[in-house]
């Protein structure tokens, strides 16, 4: 026999890798098609724009390709590409950290800080508590202890914090007040994201799963130690990264090496030591952008260029990983979170931004913006699955995805409805004026 062919095990691995590649290529192809000129007219429809920008098309595609539909890609195979997922989390964290340049932070009004703080605190406490109660109700008695439900509860809690920064699809008329509110919504979404990562990064290491132990344990002291390690790592990476970027200069290939190397190193070390890659990378981004006077224009441009494809990839992987068999407890949890987002978040916004929201003319749905879930929630849920690749984690990912979908679509439908009402009012008024003129 000619032993020139691959072994059977290696061939199997290759086939599995090919499936994952095929799934990614399919979504990339769909993304290219959807962003092409031919479908521009379709993209102008609010609903379609929201589905695309929210990543729901990619999530739906991932779900179709995943083990609970067509089974083209098995989730066990996907978890083999965990290094790339960890790299992706680091990317997300770094981008978020890079937003916090001190010149920008100085411009944030106090009202926005208050809004973000209140929304974050309320969302986290209420949703984490609700999640804990629902899980205790839903699970066998012996597992309804803090060490089992701590991580799921805090993950749902941080996913509830903040809102989506995207405002174009809940179009308001372009008045100065609407523009100002839109900017504040975007800035607030960024701040909320940072707060969510900080809280997740601080609390997630409290639950640890040691090798050799079948069940998790709670170690708060370890979490504090890991937080210090994250800060130290972020600081070293930030200052060191700045120096490396200076060495690379304007040479794009060298900047690419520094960027990939930095993100992989930070997120990999964080994952190995047991703290959140998101937090470590975010802290590194914070230090990187503020450590010197000069802006890292080329570096930031390079990072942001890949933001959209990375986001699409995350959505696709989330769709493949999620497990929709959530059971009664899951349905109750979804309804509870959606109810909270619809009932409480707009109230918080109007109480903190009252003057501005009253001045924004109707015909748009900017006041429903806080209802929409932050895209970061999907990344946090994927981080949970990476941390603990269990059936529960995947079902919680499904919960977060469904909450996000409903909370994204309803404000848009409200916006469309309001625009139609206004259009009808205007048409009626014009017809009345015209008939009076004729008489």
């Amino acid at each position, binding site marked *: *026999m*000619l*032993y*020139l*062919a*691959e072994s059977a095990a290696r*061939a199997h691995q*290759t*086939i599995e*890798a*090919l499936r994952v*590649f095929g799934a*990614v290529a399919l979504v*990339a192809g769909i993304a*290219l098609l959807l962003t092409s000129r031919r479908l521009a007219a379709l993209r102008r429809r609010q609903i379609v724009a929201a589905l695309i920008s929210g990543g729901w098309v990619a999530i739906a595609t991932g779900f179709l390709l995943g083990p609970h539909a067509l089974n083209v890609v098995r989730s066990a195979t996907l*978890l083999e590409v*965990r*290094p790339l997922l*960890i*790299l992706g989390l*680091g990317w997300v964290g770094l981008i978020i950290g890079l937003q916090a340049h001190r010149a920008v932070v100085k411009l944030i009004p106090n009202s926005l800080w208050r809004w973000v703080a209140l929304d974050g605190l309320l969302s986290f406490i209420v949703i984490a508590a609700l999640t804990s109660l629902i899980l205790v109700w839903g699970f*066998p008695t012996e*597992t309804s202890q803090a060490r*089992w439900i701590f991580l*799921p509860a805090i993950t749902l809690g941080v996913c509830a914090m903040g809102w989506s920064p995207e405002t174009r699809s809940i179009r308001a008329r372009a008045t100065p007040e609407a523009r100002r509110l839109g900017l504040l919504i975007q800035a607030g979404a960024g701040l909320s994201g940072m707060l969510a990562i900080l809280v997740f990064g601080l609390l997630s290491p409290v639950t640890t*799963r040691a*090798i*050799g*132990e*079948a*069940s998790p344990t709670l170690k708060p002291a370890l979490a504090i130690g890991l937080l210090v390690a994250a800060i130290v790592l972020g600081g070293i990476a930030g200052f060191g990264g700045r*120096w*490396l970027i200076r*060495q690379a200069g304007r040479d*794009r*290939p*060298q900047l*690419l*090496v*520094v960027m*990939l*190397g930095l*993100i*992989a*190193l*930070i*997120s*990999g*070390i964080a*994952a*190995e*030591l047991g703290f959140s890659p998101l937090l470590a990378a975010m802290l590194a981004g914070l230090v990187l952008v503020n450590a010197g006077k000069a802006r890292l224009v080329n570096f930031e441009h390079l990072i942001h*260029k890949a933001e959209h*494809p990375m986001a699409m990839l995350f959505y696709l992987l989330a769709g493949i990983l999620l497990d929709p068999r959530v059971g009664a407890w899951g349905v109750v949890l979804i309804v509870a979170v959606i109810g909270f987002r619809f009932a409480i978040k707009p109230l918080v916004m109007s109480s903190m931004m009252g003057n501005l929201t009253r001045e924004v003319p109707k015909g748009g749905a900017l006041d429903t913006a806080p209802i929409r879930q932050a895209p970061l929630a999907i990344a946090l849920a994927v981080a949970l699955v*990476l941390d*603990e*690749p*269990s*059936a*529960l984690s995947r079902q919680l990912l499904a919960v977060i995805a469904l909450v996000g979908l409903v909370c994204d679509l309803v404000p848009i439908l409200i916006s469309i409805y309001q625009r139609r009402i206004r259009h009808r009012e205007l048409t009626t008024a014009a017809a009345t004026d015209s008939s009076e003129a004729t008489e």
Partner: protein
Amino acid sequence: MIARLGRPMRWLLALGALLIIVGAVRYLVQAPTGQVIVQHDALGNSFEPSEPGLIGATTALGFILLGAWITGLLFRQIELPKLSGYLLFGVLVGPSLTRLLGIDLPALLPQGQLRHLALVNSLAIAFIALTAGGEIRIDFLRSGFKRIATITGIEVVTVLVGVTITLWLLSPMMGFLREEPALTVFFICLIIGVLEVANSPAVVIAILGETRAKGQLAQLALAITIFKDLLLIILFTIVLAVAVNAIGQDGATAGAGEIAQYLAVHLVGSIVAGIVLGFGLARVVHHTGDHVTLFVLAVALGIALVSEALGLETLLVALAAGFTMVNLWPERSAPFFHQIERLALPVYCLFFAIAGAKIELSKLMQYWPLALTIVGVRLAMVYGGTWLGATVAGLRGTPRRWLWTALVPQAGVTIALIASIEQSFAGQEWVMTLTSVLLAVVAIHEVAGPMLFRFGLHRAGEIADSPRP
């Protein structure tokens, strides 16, 4: 204080800091031994925790990229190829150094993590071959094909025959062959001879890219290296099959039909697949707009995965695709190759550092006298065969004098062929020693080859900052 240090010292400090940080992480997160306990979630479902090597692969990726890049910059300061820096970095941090020195500390780049970076290797080969294909113009081939074929043919025959006969004559001094029958010894020497024909298109392309060398030597080096690779696959397949039939285990035989079928699928199929792919890519590439970077990555990864799955030769598929694109639609394909050039640096850092990390230093230490002998014989035959072939082909001047340096480096292709030998003769007493010696030879060529080729380009005056000869 640090600001007052010169650039190379600062790079050295940065490298040191990186090594310390990763070393500290490795020490803190030592891989556990023993059985992994299955864990449970709150629903009572069980799941297996992540394999430690898998999570650590992300750190390894970042560590290799930054460490290899900095080492490459240091090497550039001392007028050596950056490529050699990437390789040396891999050797220093790879698992074999700590084993060799008997240090009871975890390796900075453990074997478990290297294993999970295999996809990077496949991606790199596709990348490098796409670049190579994109560099070969059909006009050059038309005008120089006879010359390329002549030089290649004579060099291959010289190395094959020269190395085989020399080693056969020296075989009584090779301890592991003393007890073997004459026929076995002959075929082992023939296998070594074929293997020493191999060189590394990856190294040649990387050095040409790094130095931006332009000239007759650069063009010939690329074309000959690639042409030799094609010939080598045919030659190796035939020789291995004949050797397996003659001295292999009972039942392990391959008929002429099987060999021909394998060559038809593996070689011809790969080239045809590459040409078809090249046609397709050239048609869609101008639709990618701003997403050309992703497109390039997707193409390279797709070629690597599909070729492996279908049993094709990744190198040939990518080579043929690149060649087709650049010669049929040069304007349309320009953004594609421009983007490949931009993405080449991280790919080279990873590929060559991983290659360095996989070098088995213990084998090199154990078999260095025999390895050095084979290296010496090979160098003499490569030099002689290239000079003779160039003379017969009418090549004159500095290209004839320095062309041989392009045919010295060896890397991934040779290692893959050694793995085939090990599998084909598994169970034979001499095979482990033989493959160890051959790996030691490759290690020497891998480290010294790039430096020699860069020296040759420099002496031929084909690097921008080199003096005209």
